[in-house]
């Protein structure tokens, strides 16, 4: 498991050339399926998750700099403009109750799967996520959870 705060800012290197491509600015997460689909490595530049060969403690390694591309659609453009940034985002249950704001995000660095949100009120399991918008993260109400919503 890695936290977003740990991987943000890591340098991004090419496995093919060993050249530095940039640094990891953002992760782009699709909700659902609650998975990292790409990472931003420079202004208007992204790399698909499948093109990453590893996320280590010191660098993110991309198969080949040829895999760096521009935003492909409106959703990616919005993501690169910061609309879907996690940190500080309001966490709202689908019942309309606020559950704090996002402090950090836990991801599985092997699969790209989102594992949990750390919110200002406590952890929330990622399988409760319903949507990520520019206004908030929507989380499914769960009566028996520590933060039911």
């Amino acid at each position: 498991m890695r936290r977003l705060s740990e991987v943000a800012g890591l340098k991004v290197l090419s496995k093919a050339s060993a050249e530095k491509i940039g640094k990891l600015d953002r992760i782009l997460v699709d909700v659902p399926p609650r998975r990292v689909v790409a990472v931003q490595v420079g202004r208007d530049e992204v790399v698909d998750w499948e093109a990453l060969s590893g996320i280590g403690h010191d660098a993110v390694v991309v198969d080949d700099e040829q895999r760096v591309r521009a935003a492909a659609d409106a959703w990616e453009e919005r993501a690169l403009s910061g609309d879907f940034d996690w940190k500080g985002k309001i966490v709202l249950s689908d019942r309309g109750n606020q559950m704090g704001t996002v402090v950090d995000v836990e991801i599985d660095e092997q699969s790209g799967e989102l594992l949990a949100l750390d919110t200002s009120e406590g952890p929330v399991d990622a399988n409760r996520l319903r949507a990520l918008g520019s206004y908030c993260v929507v989380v499914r109400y769960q009566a028996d959870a520590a933060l039911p919503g």
Partner: protein
Amino acid sequence: MSSPSLLLRATELIGHPVVTVDGGEALAEVKDVVYGTAEASLLGFTLNHRGFLGGPMKQVLAWSRVAALGRHAVMVATAGDLEDRHDALVEDVKGARRRNVIASEVMTDTGERLGEVTDVVLHIGAAPEVVGYEIGGSEVLTPRSGGHVFIPLPETLAVSGEALMVPATVRDFVSDDLSGFGAAVERFRDHLRTGGAPAAAPEGER
């Protein structure tokens, strides 16, 4: 599991964002709550655009389109729930301003005036409903709480532009603070169902 925080005055919803459940986007904020007269209903909400330049929106949100009401937001399924195709509702909303339940006299079936309606109390959540009224200006109930008491909604109730008619027994279920009101609503409903004598309300119940 009822908790005091699940009860909310309808006017507290003013300023709340209207948020899409499966988008996480804020579409609008509540400008005003539109009360109906029949069956103690809420017709819906008029809306403002969000942000500094937020002015009134043409669209309205019908009560039937609300997916959930929370302490911090009004949830809808999609942006389509606000569309202009609810022209009929817009007319209802305009008409409702002239027959607002707010400020109606509250009268018991024995002809006692209990006060007048100052707000509507909602039980919020996935199936929000009107559960009672906030009553002001009551001399009969002599509230300790600055002239305002809460009165549970009877299951049968007559409303006109003139008055809100309640059974005289409702006086035994009045609460002077919102936190004790949830229990009062339950007791009152049980009483109506069983037709029995009112259960003694514990003094100082939370």
